[in-house]
């Protein structure tokens, strides 16, 4: 197995290569505005570090968000085209799952920056070897989350942005492709279906159908 994992749903542009036993190489750049620039060089870098060629890839796993749309699409289109080009199997996974896999065990909260004063969030039960979502990924104003949920150990940038509302930060802010790769390997071994690779937008495009024509008669 040679599995390439990548995620662009947070401020991290993150790529990792996994052989089924361990992470062979990883590359992460922190820059919320350079997903389009940094992702492809990151892929090239991990392949070179591991001495692998793209045609040796067996799996490509992509974080599907939720996350800011423009950056998110960079990762998903990259994964889709890379899989199409190399013949590797294409898989997708909720990016919040990858964050949850990077934290402590027990019941936890993942809350990431959804901009517009909102967070993307989900609640998880994490045990050694298992990451289980207790709620589907959602987008809400942080104050609208129940207080006992906000009090859970929290991963993501939510606590950094709204410290008064998330009192228990874990300190892990962004997705790590190494965690995404590890979780994907475990889930694939367990026979979990990861075939869906549609983006998790959770919001509709901002646009209103055109109705009124402005009068030019002032």
């Amino acid at each position, binding site marked *: 197995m040679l599995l390439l994992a990548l995620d662009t749903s947070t401020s991290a542009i993150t790529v990792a290569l996994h052989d089924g036993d361990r992470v062979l190489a990883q590359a992460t750049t922190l820059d919320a505005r350079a997903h389009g620039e940094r*992702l492809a060089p990151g892929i090239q870098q991990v392949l070179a570090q591991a001495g692998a060629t793209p045609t040796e890839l067996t799996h490509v796993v992509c974080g599907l968000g939720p996350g800011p749309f423009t950056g998110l699409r960079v990762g998903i289109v990259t994964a*889709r085209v890379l899989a199409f080009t190399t013949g590797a199997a294409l898989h997708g996974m909720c990016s919040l799952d990858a964050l949850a896999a990077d934290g402590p065990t027990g019941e936890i909260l993942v809350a990431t920056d959804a901009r517009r004063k909102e967070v993307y969030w989900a609640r998880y039960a994490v045990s050694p070897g298992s990451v289980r979502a207790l709620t589907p990924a959602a987008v809400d104003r942080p104050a609208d989350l129940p207080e006992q949920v906000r009090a859970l150990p929290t991963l993501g940038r939510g606590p950094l942005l709204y410290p008064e509302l998330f009192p228990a930060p874990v300190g892990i802010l962004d997705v790590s492709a190494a965690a995404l790769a590890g979780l994907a390997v475990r889930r694939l071994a367990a026979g979990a279906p990861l075939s869906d690779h549609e983006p998790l937008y959770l919001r509709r495009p901002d646009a209103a159908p055109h109705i009124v024509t402005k009068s030019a008669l002032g």
Partner: protein
Amino acid sequence: MNDEPLVLGIETSCDETGIGIVRGSTLLVDAVASSVDEHARFGGVVPEVASRAHLEAMVPTLERACRDAGVALRDIDAVAVTAGPGLAGALLVGVAAAKALAVGLGKPIYGVNHLAAHVAVDVLEHGPLPEPTMALLVSGGHSSLLLVPDVTGDVRPLGATIDDAAGEAFDKVARVLGLPFPGGPHIDRVAREGDRVAIDFPRGLTTGRDLDRYRFDFSFSGLKTAVSRWVQVRQAAGESVPVADVAASFQEAVVDVLTRKAVAACRDQGVDDLLIGGGVAANSRLRALAQERCDRAGIRLRVPRPGLCTDNGAMVAALGAQFVARGRTPSLLDLPADSSMPVTSVQA
């Protein structure tokens, strides 16, 4: 023949997902998936809707292009992609896809300028470009006059719109006349039944001091407002609006200015070849009047067929192939999408 480079081009600067494959200056395939129908109810292109559509269309369009051309991806010599100008989020989908192809295939990538690609596409239809060529590019996003000594490295802007693009004016006037989006083809059709001298709509930046200051620039915003006013005055008086005459007279005002300035630019620069590209180049009256005026001025006119005038991947591939043929250094893998890429930078 097979020594010529096999180049795949990707275009996503607006609402068309285009994948083209060329061998040198021979077009093998031009696959386009358009999201125009999704934008119609909004009366214009919605950037987020376009970006989402590009993501969904990318792999299916790639697949269709390869199949229809009978090309295996591994045989591609280089990948070219529109790096700008255009809608930022839309461009980024194409640029990321092109990089994934380049990395996956281990082949060079060329980030190219959308406007230069609109010029370069004509090599696929009418052969090598005379150097220099004068180019008039008119679409929903651009209205530019370019002096092109070398489409792979030397493109000089002489003028551009100072407000709306010509295609944008067509869309807005179509809306005023109750015609569907995109307005260009509908106005063209309706105008055939109308009188193009029925209403004397204004010709922007064509007189006096405007002409001194904005010699080769365009302005269509005032024209659009004049059409709106003219229609609303009739409506307010309870009169019926002669839609065909309004369409024909508006269209005449646009193409009159475009062709007049294009021919003037050729004369001014001593250039004997004019190329018209961009979506508005599909307009039948623009083609006819440009031909008439070029014939009179002794200028040779080139206009690609309509399918190559609108946004497409073949034009990007065509320009990429010329980069390869001239031995240009490929772009770097961290090349950015640049929504306001100046036309003077032909390569990213």
